């Protein structure tokens, strides 16, 4: 065996064992009516589970909830994150301290963040509603029509730092020349930002949005910690819905079909997006 093959083999073996095997196995599961409580009754049902899932109103509603969550969370994280990254880059004093402190939320386990905010925003026990009450506002953060946006706030609190990290790394890797040229030409900071920073940062912005969107599509902990999908099914995200189907109702076959459908959608979106980027790159 050649050197390059010998170096590659361990990765290939672990990759196939830890990802390839479960991926195929889960596809096989999705073609059966497998339930962990009734393993003896397992039958091959072809694509019946997929048909079942596609006709399930709750699945589409979970997709819509997740979509809303992603759009609001990532949009806020991108705009706030970009501003903070720029401010951090221009900061003169306390650089190390403010960077590590402001990045810290992304290192905290999401379940702890979820529980923290569950009580911080709780109507009876939370500090924020108590403070709002003092200025005359009564706001139930987890009430109907609001709970999903409170989830967005929590996600923004935890993951804007990740956006900042990626954008800060991007900003610091940009070449300095165009900025100096803009300075010499007397361009205003806002003009420089719009015409120099943003275009140069565009590839990293795209990657950051992509990474965050894919991550946000997996939102589970906040729902598990706070609302368990409620009120009604307003915060029932796709990941939580799949967890319920597979773990609480033991329907592994159906849950696998659900995640395969999700995978197909996600990959199509990613490919579509990459084609767009390529087109834009060729056009410019």
């Amino acid at each position, binding site marked *: 065996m050649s050197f390059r093959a010998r170096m590659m083999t*361990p990765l290939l073996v672990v990759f196939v064992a830890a990802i390839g095997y479960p991926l195929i196995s889960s596809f096989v599961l999705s073609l059966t009516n497998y339930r962990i409580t009734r393993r003896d009754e397992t039958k091959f049902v072809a694509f019946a589970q997929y048909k079942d899932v596609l006709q399930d109103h709750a699945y589409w509603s979970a997709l819509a909830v997740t979509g809303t969550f992603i759009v609001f969370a990532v949009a806020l994280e991108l705009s706030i994150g970009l501003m903070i990254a720029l401010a951090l880059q221009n900061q003169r004093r306390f650089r190390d301290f403010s960077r590590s402190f402001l990045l810290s939320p992304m290192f905290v386990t999401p379940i702890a963040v979820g529980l923290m905010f569950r*009580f911080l925003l709780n109507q009876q026990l939370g500090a924020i509603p108590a403070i709002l009450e003092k200025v005359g506002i009564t706001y139930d953060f987890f009430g109907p029509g609001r709970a999903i946006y409170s989830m967005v706030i929590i996600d923004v609190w935890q993951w804007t730092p990740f956006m900042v990290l990626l954008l800060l790394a991007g900003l610091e890797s940009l070449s300095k020349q165009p900025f100096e040229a803009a*300075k010499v030409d007397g361009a205003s900071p806002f003009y420089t930002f719009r015409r120099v920073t943003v275009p140069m940062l565009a590839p990293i912005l795209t990657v950051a949005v992509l990474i965050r969107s894919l991550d946000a599509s997996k939102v589970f902990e906040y729902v*598990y910690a706070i609302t368990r999908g409620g009120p009604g099914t307003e915060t029932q995200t796709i990941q939580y819905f799949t967890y319920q189907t597979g773990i609480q109702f033991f329907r592994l076959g159906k849950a696998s079909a659900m995640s395969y459908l999700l995978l197909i959608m996600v990959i199509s979106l990613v490919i579509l997006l990459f084609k767009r980027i390529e087109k834009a790159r060729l056009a410019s």
Partner: protein
Amino acid sequence: MTISKITTRKHFEPWRLAGNILLTGAFIAVSAPFLWVFLGSFKTGTQLNNPTLILFSPNLANWTRVLETGILQAAFRSVIVGLITVSIAIIVGSMGAYSISRYKTGGSTARFGILTAQVLPPAILVFPFLDLAYRIRVNGTLVSVVAAHISLVLPVVTWFLIGFFDAAPKEVEEQALVDGLDRFTAFRKVVLPQVAPGIGASAIFGFVISWNDLFYALILAPGNSATLPVRIAGFNTFRGVELGAMSAAILVSVIPVLIASFFIQRRLVQGISGGAVKF
């Protein structure tokens, strides 16, 4: 030159002020929840009903109660799982990433496969892991959690490392081969030290992913070998009654990572700008 410097400086001041105001706001937004939970962990049941209470005599009952629930053992298990996962991912990943980067092994298929593995919904892999764990009777143990975490961490780590190897200069390594080192020794003694910051950043990233995971650990090992996130999630069932103890439990998971993040932040920014965001 001097003149332009002075004018641009004048120009930038209001923006710098705005930036500092923004950073102060962000600082308050980040610290407030931590501080509130910190205060909560020293409050008695009655004091907890007064959410804006700041001055009170601290009470250690919550902390002693939480330590009795085996939270430290759970934290220890999380560390073990994280270390094993990251060690395997780094060893296997760095060798493979080097092969992919230097010798174009697997071509674009290998790169695309690693990228795709990162977008897999976790729910797609977890049920086969659960099923297999039942069959070979390792369900409810850390073995299945480590296996699941490898599927989560390995693609990310390998992807990062490919970027770092792509960015590393080839000359030193070629010189080492000329000097008579065999290829594997050259890889170990010459190439790896060159990308050490990158390996550090990837290892930290991988560890954080494993340390934070609730989804896999909750499904695969909910019982006696619960990791820290699973144990913390367990406080959920006690509702408001155990709020004080839960605050202490949250802090047990927060404090070590806060300290760690303080030390690794600079390396992380350098590591990521060194290659990981160049897709």
